[in-house]
C-alpha cells in the first residue's frame, strides 16, 4: 500500500513539474533590432514592455545588431539554421532574395487585421512590396530631398521657392560657393552614398532609375552625369573621401550649403551642431530637364517576419502591435518621418520635443518640409538586386569622371557596361 502511494505521489510530482515547465515555457520571440543608438534602444525596450504586457505568454528577446552588420550576421545565421522571428529592416531586397522572409499579404487580408494599406502613405507602403508581395510593414518613412542652408541662399539673393529646376540649383550652388563654403555636397567616398546621396535622387528628379541602362533613359542619364560635372566646381576637394558621416560633419561645421539626402539627417546633425538646424530647410530635389512631373524617392523602415520562424501567429500579433497608431506616433517622433497618414502631427511634435529638446521648433519645421514636399510626390525607391556591386562600379566611374579622366559620355558607356554585366549575372 505504502509503495503504491509513494509511486502515485512521484508520478503526480513529475506530472506537475512537467505541466509547470510547459506552462512556463510560453513563447520566446527573437527580434532582430538594428537600432543601436541610445534613443533607438530605449525605443526597443519600450516595445518589449509593450508586447510583454499586452501578451503575457510571450517573451521578447531583443537581439541588437548595428545597421551595417545586420545582413552580414543574418547571412551566417540563416544558412546555419538559426532563424529568429522578427526583424526590422530598411531594404529587404537581399533577405527576400535569400528566401528568408514571410509574405504578409495573407495576414493583412484577414478581416481582423489591425493593419491595412490605406493607413499608410502610398509611396511609402509600396516600398515594402517586392514582386507584388508585401514583405515588411512600414514604421517610419524615409524621405529624400535637397537640404539647403536658407541663410546662405538668402545671402546669395535667392529664395527656397526659386529652386525649381536643375539650372536653378546650379546657379545657387555657384553663388553660395565662397571662402570655405561649398555650394554642393556629394559624399562620393563610400559606394552606397556615391550612388544614393546624389545621382540616384537626381535620377528620380529626372524621371529615371540609376540601374536602368536602356536606350530609353540614355539621354536622361547623360543629363544627370553632366549635372554633376557642372556642379563640380561647387564641391569640396574632400568629396572623394567623404562618407555620409563626414558630409554631415561638414554640414554641421557650416562647410556645405546644399546636399541631397534623407530625413535622418536631423538625428545625425543634432549631436554635432543643433544650431545648424535653425537654418537648414528642405525642398524637393529640383526637377531635371526631362522630368514630366515632380518625383521624390521614398523608402521606409519596417518590420518583417522570417519565413522559418516557429511562432508565426504570435509574431504577427506582436508585429501588428509594433505598427499600431499610438506606437508609431512615438516612433516617428524619434527619427525620420511618419509612415502612417493618420498620425496626429501635434502629438508627434510633442513627442519629438523629448528627443530634440534643443531644436524643437526646428525639428518640427523640417519634418513638415519633408512631409509637404516629399510624401505627396513620393515614389518608392526601386529594389535592385546586387545593387551593392553596382554601387562599387558606379563610384569608381564617377570618381574617374570627376577627376577629368572620362567625359560624361564615356562615363555613361562604362556605367552601362558594368551594370549590364552585373545584371547578366
Amino acid at each position, binding site marked *: 500500500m505504502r509503495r503504491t502511494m509513494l509511486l502515485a505521489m512521484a508520478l503526480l510530482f513529475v506530472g506537475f513539474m512537467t505541466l509547470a515547465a510547459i506552462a512556463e515555457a510560453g513563447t520566446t520571440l527573437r527580434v532582430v533590432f538594428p537600432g543601436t543608438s541610445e534613443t533607438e534602444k530605449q525605443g526597443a525596450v519600450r516595445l518589449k514592455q509593450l508586447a510583454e504586457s499586452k501578451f503575457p505568454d510571450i517573451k521578447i528577446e531583443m*537581439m541588437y545588431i548595428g545597421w551595417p552588420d545586420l545582413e552580414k*550576421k543574418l547571412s551566417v545565421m540563416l544558412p546555419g539554421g538559426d532563424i529568429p522571428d522578427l526583424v526590422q529592416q530598411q531594404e529587404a531586397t537581399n533577405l527576400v532574395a535569400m528566401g528568408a522572409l514571410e509574405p504578409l499579404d495573407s495576414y493583412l487580408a484577414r478581416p481582423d487585421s489591425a493593419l491595412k494599406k490605406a493607413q499608410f502613405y502610398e509611396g511609402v507602403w509600396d516600398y515594402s512590396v517586392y514582386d507584388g508581395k508585401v514583405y515588411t510593414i512600414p514604421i517610419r518613412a524615409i524621405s529624400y530631398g535637397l537640404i539647403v542652408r536658407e541663410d546662405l541662399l538668402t545671402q546669395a539673393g535667392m529664395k527656397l521657392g526659386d529652386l525649381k529646376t536643375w539650372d536653378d540649383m546650379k546657379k545657387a550652388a555657384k553663388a553660395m560657393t565662397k571662402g570655405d563654403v561649398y555650394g554642393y555636397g556629394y559624399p562620393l567616398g563610400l559606394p552606397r552614398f556615391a550612388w544614393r546621396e546624389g545621382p540616384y535622387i537626381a535620377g528620380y528628379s529626372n524621371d529615371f532609375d540609376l540601374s536602368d541602362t536602356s536606350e530609353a533613359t540614355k539621354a536622361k542619364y547623360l543629363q544627370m552625369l553632366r549635372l554633376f560635372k557642372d556642379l563640380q566646381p561647387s564641391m569640396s576637394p574632400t568629396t572623394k573621401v567623404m562618407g555620409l558621416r563626414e558630409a554631415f560633419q561638414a554640414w554641421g561645421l557650416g562647410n556645405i550649403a546644399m546636399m541631397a539626402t534623407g530625413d535622418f539627417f536631423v538625428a545625425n546633425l543634432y549631436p554635432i551642431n543643433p544650431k545648424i538646424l535653425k537654418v537648414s530647410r528642405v525642398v524637393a530635389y529640383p526637377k531635371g530637364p526631362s522630368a514630366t512631373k515632380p518625383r521624390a524617392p521614398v523608402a521606409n523602415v519596417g518590420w518583417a517576419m522570417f519565413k522559418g520562424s516557429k511562432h508565426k501567429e504570435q509574431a504577427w500579433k506582436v508585429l501588428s502591435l509594433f505598427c499600431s497608431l499610438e506606437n508609431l506616433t512615438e516612433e516617428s517622433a524619434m527619427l525620420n518621418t511618419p509612415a502612417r497618414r493618420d498620425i496626429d502631427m501635434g502629438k508627434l511634435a510633442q513627442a519629438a520635443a523629448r528627443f530634440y529638446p534643443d531644436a524643437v521648433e526646428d525639428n518640427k519645421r523640417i519634418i513638415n518640409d519633408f512631409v509637404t514636399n516629399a510624401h505627396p510626390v513620393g515614389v518608392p525607391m526601386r529594389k535592385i538586386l546586387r545593387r551593392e556591386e553596382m554601387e562599387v562600379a558606379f563610384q569608381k566611374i564617377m570618381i574617374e569622371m570627376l577627376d577629368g579622366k572620362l567625359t560624361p559620355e564615356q562615363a555613361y558607356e562604362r556605367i552601362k557596361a558594368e551594370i549590364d554585366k552585373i545584371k547578366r549575372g
Partner: protein
Amino acid sequence: MRRRLVRRMGLYAALLLVMAFTLSPYAWLVVSSFKPSTEIFTRTPNWSLHGATLKNYVWALGPTGGNLGIFFWNTVLAAGATALLTAGLGAMGGYAMARYAFPGRRALALALLLSPMFQGPPVMIPFYRILSTLRLLNTIPGLVLVYMSLTLPICIWLMAGFFRSLPRELEEAALVDGCSPVQAFSRILLPLTLPGLAATSLYAFVVAWNDYQYALILTSSERAKTIQLSLSELLTFFGQTNWGGIMASGVLTTLPVVLIFMVIQRVLVQGITAGALKS
C-alpha cells in the same frame, strides 16, 4: 663622462619623440572625451578644457548609454582565458618545436603558419555551425575556442623562436648537474623565457581583445558580447550618435589594460634578473 651624458640625453630625446608620437592621437581622444559632442569636431583644433564635463563618462558607464561594465568584463574574460590557454599550450608546443627535430616538424611548422590565415566570411558559417552544435553560441567559452584558432598556432611559432634563442648549453649544464629534463625545463629554461612567455600571452590577449568579426557573428547579447562590438554599435546611422560618449568609452577601454601591464611588467623583469644571475 661627457660621452655618457650625451648618450643619456640622446636616449631621453628618443624616448620623448616616440612617446609623443604614441600619445598625440590618444591625447586628442582624451581631450575630446571631456567635451560635449558638439565641440569635438571643430574647424580648428581646440585643446582647451574650458567647459569640460564628465557627462560622457557617466553615459559610457551607464546602463542605458555605453553600458561599458558588462562588455569590458566579457572581453577581459574572453581575452584572458585565451591568453592563459594559449600560453600554456604554446609554451609546451614551442619547446617541442625548438628542441626536438622530430619527423613531421617542418610540415607541422608550415601547417601552423597557415591555419590562422583562414579567416573572414568563408569560415564564419562553419564556426557558427560548430559552436551551435556544441551549444556554445553566445558564450564566452565559445569565443575562447574560436580565438584559440587564431592565437595558438602563432604562439607556438613565437615560443619556438624564444626557446631557440637560448643556448643549448644551459640545459646540458643543468642535466650534467643532475637535474631531470623536467627540472631543467622549469628551473632554468622557463624563468629565462618568461619575457617571451609574457610577450606571447599578451599578444594572444590583444588578438582576442581586438577581434571584431568573430564577436559579431558568434555573440548576440550581453551574455557574451565584447567591447569592440558594443563600441561599434554606438556609431549609428539613423539615430543620434553620442560622439562624446564614444570618446569616453574609448578611453575607458584602453586605460585599464595599459595600467595592468605597467604593474605586471615589473614582475617579469624581476623574474629575468633572478634567472640570469643564477646562470
